């Protein structure tokens, strides 16, 4: 078990290293990308600042609480964009160019997550962390609440990655196309940036159970703002793990039907 885990991590890191080397072979363009993506991290900061400049805010959330939520969502989606490019992955599956990687003795889903993704978005990740750190300085919380925030965020991140992979592989099976996944990603990114209460009961359920972006944004931030009781916290953590396992199994089942060479 642990041997298999170590092998998987080793292969994943080796593939990441190759991707980084590929990216760094074009140093000038990589630097341009870094600067551009750093600016992108500021986008939501600007939007929230303008909204709070012309209004009294959203659903009683203070400016810094709102900023904590948007920067958490930005960080989350930057990590997802770093890890996987949905359209590219669907194309790789369709064309069969992943076959040689899938034949390796590593976890199939890890192999799927090792090949695409924009490495240059790392500057956005850094930017989002800086904005989040700045925001957290203006909020008061205990070290335990912060630890709870980090744990729920990371669990939510892995849950979302599992669900996202299920959707991507599902799109390959259903449409053989993945262009619309960018639009879908944008929708979930935007919805994760705002309080879940805005979207009503139905919207809230979708964002918690179907595409659980709220498990990595709204609920972790609610820990920092003292809006989530310990019992609810444990419930959300358990829910995230259940969804992660279900999505993982679902993707595994779909990948069993993958035909070498794209089908």
């Amino acid at each position: 078990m642990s041997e298999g885990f170590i092998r998987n991590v080793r292969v994943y890191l080796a593939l990441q290293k190759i991707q980084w080397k590929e990216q760094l072979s074009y140093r000038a363009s990589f630097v341009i990308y870094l600067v551009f993506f750093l600016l992108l991290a500021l986008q939501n900061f600007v939007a929230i600042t303008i909204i709070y400049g012309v209004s009294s805010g959203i659903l009683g959330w203070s400016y810094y609480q709102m900023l904590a939520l948007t920067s958490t969502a930005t960080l989350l989606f930057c990590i997802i964009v770093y890890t996987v490019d949905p359209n590219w992955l669907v194309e790789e599956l369709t064309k069969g160019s992943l076959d040689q990687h899938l034949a390796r003795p590593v976890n199939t889903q890890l192999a799927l997550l090792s090949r695409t993704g924009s490495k240059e978005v790392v500057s956005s990740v850094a930017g989002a962390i800086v904005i989040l750190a700045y925001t957290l300085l203006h909020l008061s919380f205990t070290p335990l609440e912060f630890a709870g925030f980090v744990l729920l965020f990371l669990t939510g991140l892995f849950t979302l990655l599992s669900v996202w992979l299920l959707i991507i592989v599902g799109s390959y099976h259903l449409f053989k196309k993945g262009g619309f996944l960018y639009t879908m990603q944008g929708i979930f990114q935007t919805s994760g940036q705002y309080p879940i209460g805005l979207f009503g009961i139905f919207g809230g359920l979708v964002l918690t159970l179907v595409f659980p972006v709220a498990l990595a944004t709204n609920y972790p931030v609610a820990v920092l703002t003292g809006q989530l009781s310990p019992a609810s916290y444990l419930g959300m953590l358990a829910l995230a793990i259940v969804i992660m396992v279900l999505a993982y199994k679902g993707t595994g089942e779909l990948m069993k039907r993958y035909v070498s060479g794209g089908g």
Partner: protein
Amino acid sequence: MANGYLAVFKISFKEFLSYKSSAALTAALTLVYPLLLVFVWKAVYASTGGATIGGLTLNQMYVYFFFNVVGLLVAESFIVWQMRDCVKEGCLASDLARPVAYPKFIFATALSQPVFNIVFAGIPLVALLIVATGITVTPLTLAMFALALCVDYAIANLFSFIFGTLTIYLTDVSGLFNAFLGMATLLGGGVMPLLLFPAWAQHVLYLLPFQFIVFVPSAVMTGLITAQAFLGFMAVGAAWIAALLVVAWLLWKKARVMINAVGV
């Protein structure tokens, strides 16, 4: 020669229709985005308590965001993705060997997406929005809206072509182009009307090309732009189209010599 491009468009449109479920899903998902912003702004207005924010009523805000969709549907362009794939796979060289000019060929191919979007989503949506929102629409408003969408299409596709051409130098511009789209959405009024930005920022944003992708078409239908002011916007739009054409032409002229049979 024009028949050649028409044939290219017809083939591309048929090919596009073969993936109609994916295309329809993209168009449907595009509708969800303004719906999210409607929820957000409804809450902002409720918290603020005033009838207007930045001179806009909540109803105007709804109209604005829903007409944003039409602008986005027209602006959708797969030129950059097609060029990226061709550069990676080396098919650009064979495309260059065709008896048609490559830039015109790729524009004719990419026309299928906005045509599909306009016919199957844009026109029904505009009709539905006019009836549902009860806005007053004169023939002049519709003419201005149509013209604004033409400028929207030209600017979005020229940017797409420029980024597609950059692929020849950078190998893959997917991340960069997506980042550009995110930036253009904010600076072009996709998150909030430009009227809500600070005055100094508005002066700058009204000179940039991004406003033509969402702000100008939506603002025309929302009644935020008068016929007189519209002429000024179109003058800026025309200048941007001319500038982007020159950039696209120069870039393509320089980049095409780097292409060989196996890509770049």
